[in-house]
Every structure is written in structure tokens, then in C-alpha cells.
């Protein structure tokens, strides 16, 4: 069948089951947008290309499907770079289609020509420029296959504008062959099960890879059968239900005391789908100690990368756990649990007791209010992110979306827009700080125009809280460029066509949260909190994970 390259792109998107794309038009993609004009696909026009890529990312994280973003050449393409990096470091499947100057103008520093393939090489799972019409459709099909197969990731396809105008013969759908994922070593599986069966102080750690592999049932069975305390990395929150009695919470730099102490004192640590990054391990040279570490991961390059592991198990977690579970025996660890409960008592959680308005208390109220509704929380980066991770109770995978690896401030709002399209029947709650909101806040206009009933919680402490926290603790209280001036968040939301309210007390927050529900437009709640509140517990960067910073000296 003959059609233009632009029409062929639309057809491939349909073939791949895409019904929503996020993008922003520009010179090199005018033919593509011309084809989109009457295509049975929804293009969500964001305020900025960065908003489009984060929205595609939020869509992918919430749905498990491949998110699609379109940007024009030059600045349009460079504006999606942060979003690609965000998706790459969190293994999110995306296909980004960037426009490019015509083939004949390539390499001549033409208007809006940027070597975006060169720019994005280290932050994409794969990328390529299409140079011939006949390669366009196969390249796009390949991009979708690569983005979602094995360890997912973003793929960029750069398409010169003349190829979207030229006619081509649309090729028949062919299966794309990709390398097979390695299977777990059977010998290590048996050794790992034996180690876990004999453990006196075991801990199960769940990470983002467990979310990708949808192993929530397997993890529940494993934890209950072997009586395992379960800690989660930031990316793993929700894959093991936070309200389950065996879930003890977040581990890492801002992990709960019982979680970090349990990991540090464990005799066997079973890691399911985490790269054991520096934010999880602290001092990686003192992380393993004498414990046996069983590390399950789909990506063999993650094994032994950050921490030397005793028993590496490469492969898709679903398959690995299916083979591992029959080898695991029923067990009870009463004394170990008693010890963990003692550690839990060490942590001062009075900041969330409701005696004054604080971010941790807000998180507990969100959990309580939305306990009976399918709610997706999309957080930004910084203190708000850590308070959310510590104090929200997330019971399902893909219900806590955050930029974990890249730590991209400004991800939250556009990410929430994407999640709202992925889960139209769910409540979307966006949580951010005052600094992060200002980075991509214009997407409030997108959310309002699209009638998205998301609730945006802006934790306003009039500062860049996490940097300020480090300045307080490690830089002699020299608050360089972190104290922010007043901003009318509610007025801004209203100017975007949304609504909102500022709250300064717990009572006002409760009222505002009621007011925010059941709407057809976004509602912003500006929560004014004390600047001095710190995220606690905290382990200093590079310190051993049980060496908590003393913040009340």
C-alpha cells in the first residue's frame, strides 16, 4: 500500500496499539502533524517538549505500555533530552520520534539541525536516524520492540522531514527478532534457595525491576512462605503492598531505621530487581559485610556492578521466581521480627502526628482519604518525594511514579498528566515542592485544557528544601540560592483554568482535600509548611546505611 512517510508513522503507531501520543509541533514535523490532524490518534499538546516526554513517561509507567513522544528537530529534540535520561535511568519504555532536517541538508549545520542521535546516545537504549524511506517502518517497529523487550528503555528515532513527505510502500508486519534474555543459572538457584532456607535474619528487597516484571503475586508468596521482612527501594514501592504486615518500608539514604538496620544486619539479602545504586547502598564497600547477597536481575551487567554479590541470578524475575519459589521452604523468624520491631521504635515519627501541618502528615491523610479509590501518586523530586516515599502507603505496583535514578525536578506535573491519560478512571495525585512546580508548572494549563481532574499538592516551604537540608547539615547553614520568594500558586492555577486553595493548618487541608475531589478540572492545594522541617531519617552520601545523621543537635 502506497502512503506518505508521515501516514506510515501513524499506521505503525496504530499497529503497535498506540492511541495517545504526547508532542509539540515544529518545522520538521509539520508533515507528521498534518497526518495526525485526521488520524484516529490523540496528540496531547503540552506546553513544552519536556512536558511531552515526561507525560509519555508517566503514561508508560502508569500503564506498562510504551509511551510515545513527538518533537521537532533542533531545540524541540534537545528539549526532550532530560526526559529521555529520566526514562533511561528508570528503565521506562518510550519511543521518541524527533523530526530532522531533510536528508540532503544533513551535516551542513542547517536551520534547526542538531545531531540528536549523537546527543542522546548515552541516554537511550537504542537510537538511530532514518536515511531512506524504506527503512522508516522497519526502524519504528524495531524501536517499539527494543523499548519494551527485556529491560525496557527509551528509544529515539530521528526522521528527516523529507522522508515524511515522500511516498513509500507500507511493508507487511514482520516479527522483530531481538536477543533472548539470559536464564538464571540453575545451580545458583538451588544454592540461593538453600541459603534463604537456612537464613536466621533474611530480608527481601524489592526494586523497580519487580514492578516491570509484574511479580507482585510471586513476591507475596515468597515473603509469606519464608516469613521475610520486605524493604523497598524508591522504585519498588507498591510492588509489595505497603499495608502488608511484612512490608517494613523504604530503604536507602532516607530509608526507615528498621529497614536500613534490617538490611545491614541481615545474614541473607535477596534483592529482586534493583541495581543497588548509591542511594540504596550508601557506602557500597561496607554494604555487603558478611551477608549472602542473592541478586536477581534481568540485566547481567547489574550483577556485581555496585556491590559484589554472592549468588547472581540473571533473568526475567517472573521466570526466575517461578523456578525459585518451589525450592523455598516454610519458615518463621520470630526473634528476627522482634529485633526489627525494636528498631522501628527508635524512629521518631512525631512529625506526622497532626499537631501541626507538615508534609509527612499530609501524606498520611492522602493515604487515608484515598484508601478505597484506585489512586496513582506522581511525585516530583526532593523533600516532597522522600516524605511521600516514607509516609504514603502504596499497595499496588505502578501506583507510585517518581524519577528515581535521574532525580529530575519538574517530572511530577507532566508525569501526572501522562498518568491521567493512562488511568482515566483513577484518581491522580501529583505531589511536588514549590521549586519543582515552577520548573514545569505550565503543564497545569495542559491538564486544565484536557479537563484532567488531578489533584496537585504543592508542599511549599519557600525553599529548595532538599538542597537547603544539605546546606543546613553539611555546609554550615550557608543557604546559597535555595530560599525562594513568594509565588501565588493558586493564582497561577486559576490563570491556567484550574482551581486551588492555600492551606496553613491541618483543618484547612482536610477541607481543601474534600473540595478537590469530584471535579472535572485540576485542583491545586498549596500546603504551606515550615522551612525547617527535614527529611528524617537520613544517611549522609557515602556513609554506611545505619549511620544516621543526627539532625537535632
Amino acid at each position, binding site marked *: 500500500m502506497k502512503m506518505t512517510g508521515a501516514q506510515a508513522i501513524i499506521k505503525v503507531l496504530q499497529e503497535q496499539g498506540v492511541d495517545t501520543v504526547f508532542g509539540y509541533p515544529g518545522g520538521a514535523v509539520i508533515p507528521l502533524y498534518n497526518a495526525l490532524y485526521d488520524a484516529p490518534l490523540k496528540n496531547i499538546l503540552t506546553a513544552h517538549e519536556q512536558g511531552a516526554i515526561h507525560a509519555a513517561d508517566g503514561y508508560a509507567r502508569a500503564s506498562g505500555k510504551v509511551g510515545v513522544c513527538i518533537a521537532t528537530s533542533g531545540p524541540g529534540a534537545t528539549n526532550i533530552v532530560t526526559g529521555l535520561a529520566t526514562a533511561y535511568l528508570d528503565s521506562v519504555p518510550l519511543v521518541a520520534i524527533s523530526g530532522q532536517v531533510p536528508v540532503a541538508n544533513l551535516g551542513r549545520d542547517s536551520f534547526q539541525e542538531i545531531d540528536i*542521535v*549523537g546527543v542522546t*546516545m*548515552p541516554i537511550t*537504549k*537504542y*537510537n*538511530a*536516524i532514518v536515511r531512506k524511506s524504506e527503512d522508516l517502518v522497519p526502524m519504528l517497529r524495531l524501536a517499539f520492540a*527494543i523499548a519494551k523487550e527485556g529491560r525496557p528503555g527509551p528509544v529515539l528515532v530521528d526522521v528527516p522531514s523529507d522522508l515524511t513527505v515522500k511516498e513509500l510502500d507500507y511493508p507487511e508486519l514482520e516479527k522483530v527478532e*531481538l*536477543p533472548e534474555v539470559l536464564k538464571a543459572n540453575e545451580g545458583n538457584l538451588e544454592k540461593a534457595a538453600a541459603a534463604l532456607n537456612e537464613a536466621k535474619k533474611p530480608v527481601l528487597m524489592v526494586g523497580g525491576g519487580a514492578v516491570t516484571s509484574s511479580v507482585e503475586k510471586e513476591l507475596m508468596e515468597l515473603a509469606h512462605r519464608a516469613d521475610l521482612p520486605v524493604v523497598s527501594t524508591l522504585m519498588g514501592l507498591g510492588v509489595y503492598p505497603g499495608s502488608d504486615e511484612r512490608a517494613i518500608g523504604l530503604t536507602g539514604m532516607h530509608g526507615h531505621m528498621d529497614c536500613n538496620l534490617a538490611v545491614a544486619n541481615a545474614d541473607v539479602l535477596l534483592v529482586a530487581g534493583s541495581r543497588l545504586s548509591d542511594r540504596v547502598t550508601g557506602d557500597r564497600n561496607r554494604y555487603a559485610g558478611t551477608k549472602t547477597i542473592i541478586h536477581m536481575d534481568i*540485566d*547481567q*551487567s547489574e550483577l*556485581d*556492578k555496585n556491590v559484589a554479590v554472592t549468588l547472581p541470578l540473571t533473568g526475567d524475575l517472573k521466570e526466575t521466581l517461578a523456578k525459585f519459589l518451589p525450592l523455598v521452604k516454610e519458615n518463621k523468624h520470630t526473634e528476627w521480627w522482634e529485633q526489627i520491631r525494636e528498631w522501628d521504635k527508635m524512629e521518631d515519627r512525631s512529625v506526622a502526628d497532626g499537631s501541626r501541618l507538615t508534609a509527612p502528615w499530609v501524606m498520611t491523610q492522602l493515604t487515608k482519604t484515598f484508601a478505597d479509590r484506585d489512586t496513582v501518586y506522581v511525585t516530583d523530586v526532593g523533600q516532597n518525594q522522600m516524605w511521600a516515599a516514607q509516609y504514603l502507603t502504596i499497595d499496588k505496583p505502578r501506583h507510585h511514579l517518581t524519577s528515581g535514578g535521574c532525580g529530575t525536578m519538574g517530572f511530577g506535573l507532566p508525569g501526572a498528566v501522562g498518568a491521567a491519560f493512562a488511568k482515566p478512571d483513577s484518581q491522580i495525585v501529583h505531589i511536588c515542592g514549590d521549586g519543582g512546580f515552577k520548573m514545569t508548572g505550565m503543564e497545569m494549563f495542559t491538564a486544565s485544557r484536557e479537563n484532567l481532574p488531578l489533584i496537585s499538592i504543592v508542599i511549599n516551604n519557600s525553599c529548595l528544601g532538599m538542597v537547603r537540608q544539605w546546606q543546613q547539615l553539611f555546609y554550615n547553614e550557608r543557604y546559597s540560592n535555595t530560599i525562594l520568594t513568594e509565588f501565588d500558586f493558586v493564582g497561577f492555577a486559576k490563570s491556567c483554568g484550574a482551581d486551588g486553595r492555600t492551606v496553613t493548618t491541618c483543618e484547612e487541608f482536610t477541607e481543601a482535600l474534600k473540595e478537590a475531589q469530584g471535579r472535572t478540572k485540576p485542583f491545586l492545594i498549596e500546603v504551606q509548611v515550615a522551612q525547617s522541617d527535614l527529611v528524617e531519617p537520613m544517611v549522609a552520601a557515602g556513609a554506611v546505611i545505619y549511620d544516621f545523621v543526627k539532625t537535632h543537635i
Partner: protein
Amino acid sequence: MFAKVRVTCKNDETLLPRLLRVLAKQGVHIRSLHLDAEDDVLKIEVQFVEPAAAQVAKFLAKQMFVSSVETVD
């Protein structure tokens, strides 16, 4: 001490720079680089100053369209 890896991969225009980026990200100091391209196959042999050759080989092997990576003594 030097390590050497032999990479066989698809002769794709982005693969060589991608593999070199992988080495650069690991801070690998390249001592020699040889490559042969035959139709659709690219063979690259890199010698570098780096004790952790096994881990570097894993990072190279995970790139799309790399069909094999051998570490050579």
C-alpha cells in the same frame, strides 16, 4: 596491565560510537583499537588499561545488536 575485548556486532552506524561511549563512561583508557567491517558484521578489538575487563565486557554486551563479546588474555 592491559585487557583486551573482541566485540562482534551488527555493522550499524550508531554502534561504534555507542560502544566507545560505553568505554568512555567507564573511564577506560584505550591503548589500541582495530576494526573490520564485512557487509553487515563489524568486528572490533579493543585493548585498554583496565583491570575490570569482565564488567566492561558486560556493559558492551548489553548494547543492542552486539552478538558476542570475548575477553582475551
